[in-house]
């Protein structure tokens, strides 16, 4: 999977490092600090296809950060924590392709430090609010969780902090580690899904939607709370029908009212990421979308089309049986 594995000397004997190396059956190269290497030279994004390296180390500085507005369900404070950089999948719209200047993966092993920061936030949060912590902002939180091995740590932590919530966000079908856990009402596994046609076109190397739905079903049967992200929605002439089919496929396996929440978001890019899409995928149909390129640098559908898409899919979700106040628009204020 990885061409070379680099480990910070400071964590070479850390149990999680040893667990990862054991899983990878890999001889690491010891380095001083990840920051001295990762992203210091611009490594082409598509090199991830045949030359992916792994860095293992400690996350320095702030590990838990406040999420932007409209990131999650309204009314509660949302935070994300930085446990890893980059992803094994290759979605054409992915913002990571313009983010780190390297597609190499980084696993941080100092989850105890992240938990300490979370604890502080929990203690400062007013009693009538629920602090949310989201994993998977800069990586897929489950795709390699059988290698990284931190899932049980977080289940233990959130069992001890029932007034806070944790979201594991994934595009994978890798639910093995979650399945080993006893369900907790405040630990929610969420799946980003797109209609099958779109997944095949754009979500390179991701498991098909049908496989992910089967994994969701396993968690549902075991009683784990679930969430959905229909994000990014990409406009097509049959958008409504495609999402109708997707929702029907889900509802065949899981009652829609079971879901804790469904977030909807349309495809959008920063200028840098869009430039990367042009470079990396010059024949992608994303480049023929009706995007506006306003001065704020956020490349997106024109307001009217964006609202049109979101309203249609929101209405569809509610008609099909998702609980109305649990369907929210992501990053739309």
């Amino acid at each position, binding site marked *: 999977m990885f061409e*070379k594995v680099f480990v910070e000397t400071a964590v070479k004997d850390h149990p999680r490092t040893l667990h990862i190396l054991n899983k990878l059956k890999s001889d690491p190269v010891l380095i001083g600090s990840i920051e001295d290497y990762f992203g210091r030279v611009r490594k082409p994004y598509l090199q991830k296809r045949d030359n992916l390296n792994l860095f293992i180390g400690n996350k320095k500085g702030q590990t838990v950060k406040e999420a932007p507005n409209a990131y999650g369900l309204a009314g509660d404070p949302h935070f994300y924590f930085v446990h890893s950089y980059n992803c094994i999948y290759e979605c054409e719209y992915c913002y990571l392709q313009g983010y780190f200047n390297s597609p190499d993966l980084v696993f941080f092993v100092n989850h105890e430090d992240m938990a300490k920061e979370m604890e502080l936030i929990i203690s400062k949060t007013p009693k009538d609010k629920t602090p949310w912590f989201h994993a998977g902002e800069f990586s897929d939180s489950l795709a390699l969780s059988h290698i990284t091995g931190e899932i049980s740590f977080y289940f233990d932590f959130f069992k001890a902090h029932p007034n806070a919530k944790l979201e594991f966000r994934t595009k994978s079908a890798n639910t093995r580690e979650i399945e080993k856990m006893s369900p907790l009402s405040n630990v929610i596994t969420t799946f980003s899904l797109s209609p099958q046609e779109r997944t095949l076109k754009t979500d390179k190397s991701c498991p098909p939607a049908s496989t992910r739905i089967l994994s969701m079903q396993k968690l549902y049967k075991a009683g784990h709370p679930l969430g959905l992200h229909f994000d990014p929605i990409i406009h097509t002439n049959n958008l409504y029908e495609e999402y109708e089919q997707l929702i029907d496929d889900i509802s065949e396996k899981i009652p829609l009212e079971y879901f804790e929440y469904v977030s909807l978001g349309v495809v959008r890019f920063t200028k840098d990421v869009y430039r990367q899409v042009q470079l990396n995928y010059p024949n992608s*149909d994303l480049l023929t979308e009706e995007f506006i390129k306003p001065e704020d640098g956020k490349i997106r559908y*024109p307001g*009217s*089309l964006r609202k049109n898409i*979101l309203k249609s899919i929101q209405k569809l979700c509610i008609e099909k049986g998702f609980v109305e106040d649990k369907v929210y628009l992501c990053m739309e204020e």
Partner: protein
Amino acid sequence: MQLLTFAHRGEAKAFFEHLELEAIDGNTLYKFTDGLVLIMGEGVFDPLSKVSKVLALYPEISEIINLGVAGALNPNLNKDEVIQVRSSYLELEGNPQFHSFTMRNRDLPFKKEDCLTSSRRVLSKEQAQKLLPFAGIVDRELWAVARANKENKLPMTSLKVISDIPSEESEQICQVVKESALKLSTALYNAWSQIDGDQLQPEEKVSIPYFDQFHFTRSMSSTLQKRCHQLEIKFPDNKLEELIDFNSIVESEMRPKEKAIQILDEMNRLINPYRISVEERLKKLTHGLTSTGLTCSFDPHLEKSNLHIKGTFSNPNELKKVSEQLSKFDFEKMKSILEGDDRV
């Protein structure tokens, strides 16, 4: 035409033996049937200036191939092994430089590695270990060749033969490389021979039916090229002439430039159907207002549900007409269009 670049004459030894090289500039630039051979010298600066000069003097160069020896940073590489470089990085006095260059991805039977051009000779195992996170091999000039090519953006290939593995014995490396020059150069020559016939396809020019009946200005040509590409992606199963009625545009009374504008508009209609449909509905809705001489406009990004009106009134009658039309205007309808209230 290919430009073959080498740091040292020794690295090009086999090329001198096999190709009929004819000197054209002292003892650094030579020509052969299919291209040029440049001996650049070592380090970042000499290659940078020499390659820049040759690229400026020979615009017919269509591809650059850098050939030479390299040290192995990756312990899994072997001496005398030929490597195809993927990406080129630079380290200057111990500091990695952010800017990198990507080589052409050729289908060749060699291992692929990234190459770090170092301003210092990498002689010890310890030094090599420090550089390994950046690249699998190290040389002294590739990044400079790529940098010289930055503006030209010619496709570049680099083939390196592993001359040494940095270790305690590396102090004598220059002597070792000199002694093995013919062997290493022959390996490079054999590797290069495998790509010799693999010429680049010239970039396909945009072609539309009745092209000579239209007049596209320079900027319109570039828009045409972009839109043709977008239509190819958006309608992979249709030919352009199935999507656009070229005959009726060609037969119309318009001037060639107007016809070209019409073609671009038709393409825009196919690429941006939603926006065009919104604009048309808004135009229809504001017809009453515009018929009184008012100019109506909307947020170009269709983000805000605002109507901007501009007009000049010269007498009370004109004002009366305008206020009649304003009172008839269906603001709610406009809002519903801009709020995206119709089904997708």
